[in-house]
C-alpha cells in the first residue's frame, strides 16, 4: 500500500513538473517595466481590504500580490482583513471608503454570485474596476487514494446511488455558492443523491476526507496539492471543459455526459469606479505587472494556478464577470431562490 502511495505521489510530482515547465514559458502581457507616478500618487502606503482571513486562499493571494507590487513599485500595501458574512462585510467597508485610489479590494467570484442573487449588492464589473484577475481555477471531486469501495467516477456514482442519499461529500455549501450550484448540476446530471456537508475552514474539510468522516471532497486542486503530492487524495472528476495537462488521466464532467458550463473560482483585485482615472491606470499597471513578477508566478505555480490561464486584465475580467452573473442568475431561478 505504501509503495502504491509513493508511486502515486511520484506520478503527481512528474505531472507537476510538466505543468511547471509549461509555466516557465510564461510571457508577461504588460510591456512597460515601469510607469511614472501620476501626480506623485501614491505617496503613502495603499490599503488592501481582504474580505477573508489571512490563512485562506484569498489571504494568501493577497499577500503574494502585495509582496509582488511592493517589490515592483516600492509602495507598501497594508492588508486589512475584514472577514465575515461570506465576503459581504469587507465589500461594504470597501464601498464606504474614500474612492481616492489608496484603497484596493481583493475579492473572489462570490462577489459576482452575491450580485447575481441580489442586484443591490455591488456589481464587481460596473461598481468596481477590476485591476487584474490573478487566479482562475476549476474544481474537482476527490476521494482517498486508499479507498476500496470505489476508485473512479463511474464506480463512485454507482456506489453513491446504492447508498440512497447516505453518501457524504465535504465542501463549502453556503446557499447560492459556486460549490452548491455546481453540486446541483452534478447530482442532477448523474442522477444521484448525496449529502453535502459544509466546512467553512480548509483544515477540517480535508481532515474529514482523510479520516474517513466523509466519502468524497469537492475542492480546487491548488488547495489540496499537498494531499495530492503525498498520495492521500486523488481526483476522480474534473469540472472543466477539457482535461488540463497535469490531470490528463482524470475525466471531465463533459466526458461523463454532464452538459453544463463549469463555474470557475477566480480571485482578483479591484478599485472603486469613482477613483481618479490616472490613479486607476497606474494601479492597473502595478497589479497587472505584479502578476508577472517572479515571486507571484512562483506562488501561482505552487498553487496549481498555472494549469489553466489564470490571467485576466481589466477587459478580460469584466468579460468573465459579465458572463458569470447571468449564469448564476439562471441557476438561482431554477433552484427556486429569491433572485432580487
Amino acid at each position, binding site marked *: 500500500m505504501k509503495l502504491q502511495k509513493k508511486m502515486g505521489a511520484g506520478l503527481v510530482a512528474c505531472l507537476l513538473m510538466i505543468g511547471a515547465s509549461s509555466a516557465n514559458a510564461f510571457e508577461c502581457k504588460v510591456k512597460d517595466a515601469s510607469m511614472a507616478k501620476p501626480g506623485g500618487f501614491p505617496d503613502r502606503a495603499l490599503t488592501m481590504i481582504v474580505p477573508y482571513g489571512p*490563512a485562506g486562499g484569498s489571504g494568501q493571494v493577497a499577500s503574494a500580490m502585495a509582496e509582488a507590487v511592493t517589490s515592483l513599485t516600492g509602495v507598501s500595501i497594508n492588508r486589512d482583513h475584514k472577514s*465575515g*458574512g461570506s465576503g459581504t462585510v469587507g465589500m461594504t467597508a470597501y464601498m464606504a471608503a474614500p474612492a481616492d485610489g489608496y484603497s484596493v479590494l481583493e475579492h473572489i467570484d462570490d462577489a459576482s454570485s452575491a450580485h447575481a442573487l441580489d442586484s443591490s449588492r455591488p456589481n464587481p464589473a460596473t461598481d468596481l474596476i477590476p485591476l487584474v484577475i490573478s487566479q482562475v481555477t476549476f474544481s474537482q471531486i476527490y476521494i482517498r487514494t486508499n479507498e476500496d469501495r470505489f476508485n473512479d467516477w463511474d464506480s463512485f456514482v454507482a456506489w453513491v446511488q446504492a447508498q440512497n442519499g447516505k453518501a457524504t461529500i465535504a465542501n463549502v455549501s453556503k446557499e447560492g455558492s459556486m460549490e452548491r450550484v455546481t453540486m446541483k448540476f452534478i447530482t442532477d446530471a448523474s442522477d444521484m443523491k448525496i449529502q453535502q456537508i459544509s466546512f467553512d475552514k480548509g*483544515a477540517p474539510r480535508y481532515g474529514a476526507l482523510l479520516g*474517513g468522516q466523509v466519502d468524497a471532497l469537492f475542492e480546487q486542486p491548488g488547495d489540496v*496539492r499537498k*494531499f495530492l503530492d*503525498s498520495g492521500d487524495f486523488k481526483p476522480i472528476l474534473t469540472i472543466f471543459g477539457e482535461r488540463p495537462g497535469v490531470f490528463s488521466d482524470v475525466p471531465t464532467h463533459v466526458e461523463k455526459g454532464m452538459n453544463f458550463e463549469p463555474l470557475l473560482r477566480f480571485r482578483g483585485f479591484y478599485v472603486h469606479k469613482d477613483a481618479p482615472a490616472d490613479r486607476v491606470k497606474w494601479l492597473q499597471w502595478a497589479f497587472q505587472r505584479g502578476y508577472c513578477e517572479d515571486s507571484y508566478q512562483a506562488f501561482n505555480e505552487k498553487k496549481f494556478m498555472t494549469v489553466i490561464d489564470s490571467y485576466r486584465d481589466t477587459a478580460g475580467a469584466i468579460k468573465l464577470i459579465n458572463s458569470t452573473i447571468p449564469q448564476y442568475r439562471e441557476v438561482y431561478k431554477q433552484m427556486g431562490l429569491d433572485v432580487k
Partner: protein
Amino acid sequence: MIENFLLGSSALFGDPLTLAIFVFGVLGGMLFGAIPGVSMLTLAAILLPFTASLTPTQGVMLFAVIYCTGTYGGAITAILFNIPGAPENAPTAFDGYPMTRKGLAGKAVGAAVLCSAIGGVASALVMMAATEPLAKWAIRNIGPPEIFALVFFGLAVASSVGGRTIWKGWMSVGLGLIIATIGQDPVGGIDRFNFGFSDLAAGIAFVPAILGFFAVSEIFVQAEKTAKGRYEAPPVNMEFPSFFELWQQKFAVLRSILVGFFCGILPGIGATLAAFMGYGEAVRWSKKKDSFGKGNIEGVISSETANNAATGAAMIPLLALGLPGGALTAMMVAVFQMHDLEPGPLVFYNSPDLIWVVFAAMFFANLSILFIGILETKTILYLLKIPFQFLAPLILLLATIGSYIGRGLVLDVMVMFAAGIIGFMLRRSGYSIPGIVLGIILGKIGEQNFAQGMQMVHYDLLDYLSRPVCLILIVAGTLTLASGLHKAFKTNHASST
C-alpha cells in the same frame, strides 16, 4: 527517540544563528503575548515574510517557539490587569486577578510561569514520543460528532459551576450561546439577527467580548471606585509560591496536562477550550469550590498548565497530517510552503532533521519560560505602580486596537465596549461572566459541529451515540446537568443578599 532528540538539540545549540533565532522567538513571543492588544499572531504575521530568508528548519522552529512562549505571555496581563493577552489566557484571569487585588500577584505569576513550563514540557515530550500514531488515531476517531459532544460536555461543566445559582450559571451560558448565533448560520450562510446592521453578518467575535467583559469592565469598576473616592492601588508583592504550595497542586497539574493535550489535538479547538476545560475540571474536582474566582492559586495553575499543554498537541495534526488547528499553526503552513515544503506525513520521511530540531526547540522554549519568566516577572510587576488614571487610557486603547485589528471592524470595538458595560452591570447580579464568554466561544463551534455531525449520521440519534467518544461525553455532560438540577432543588444556601 532520545537519539533523535539529542541530534535535534545539538543542531539547535550548535549553530549560533539558529540559537539566536531561538532566543529571539522566546523573548518575542513572551513580549507580544504580554502586551494586550497585540498577540503572538501579530508578531508571527510581521515575521512571516522574513522567514523566506531563513532555512526551513529555522523558520518553522521560530514559529513553534513563538507559539509556546506567546501562549504563556498572555497570562501576565491576565493576572496583573484582568486583561488576557489571548483568549486562551482568559480563565487565568478568573483567579489570577483576584490574587493581584489581594497583593498576591507574585504568587500568581510565579505559578503561571512554572505551570506553563510544566504543561508545555510535558506536552512536548508526548509530542516527541507519539506524534504519528496520535495524529492518525485522532483523525479517524474524532470528527464533528465527537467535537460537538466535547463542546456539550464543556458547556455542561462550565454552566454547572459558574453563577450564584445553577439557574444563573445556565442563563449565562445560554446568553453566550444566543449571542453566538448572531451573524450567519454555519450551513447555509443565511443572515440571522442582524438588526439592520450589515456588519453584524460577520457575527460577534469572542476576542472583543473577552476584552470587554474582563479588561473594560474592570476599568469601569475602578472608575466607579475613583468616582466614590475609594480607589486603592493593589499592593505589589514579589513573593513567589513556595515549593510546598506547588507540590500540593500536583494532581491539578496532571489533570490539566491531560485535558489540555486532548483539547489541543482537536483541529479548531486548541488552547482556548483547553484552558477553560482545565479550569472547569479543577473546580469540579476541588473540595474548596467556593474559593474559585476569588483568588485560588489552583485556578491559575489549571488554566496555564492546560493551555501550554495544548501547544505541543496542536503540532501533532499539523506536522503529521498537514492540518493546522488554529491561526498560528496555519501561519506555520505558510512557512513550510515558502520553502517548498508541505507539513504532512511526508515531512517525517523527507525532513526528519527539521522535525527534531522543532521538537527540541519547543521543549527548550517551554523550559526557558521558567527561567526567563521569573526574571521578566520581577520587572513587569512594577507596572502595577503606575497611577491608574494614566494606565486606564492606555489599557482601553490597547483593548480597542486589539479588538479592531482581528477583523478590521469598528463593530468589534463597539461590541467590546458594550460587553464592558454589560460586564460592569452584571458583576453583582450573580451571573457568570466566564459562562457568557464560553457560550460565545463554543456556541459557533458547537452549532457547526452539531450540524455536520447530524448530517453525517443522517439525523439518527442511535447512530450518533454508537460512536464511543460521543457516547461517553454526552452521558458525562448529561449527568453533570442532571446532578446540577438535583442540587438546585436540594442545596444549601450560603448567604442572602
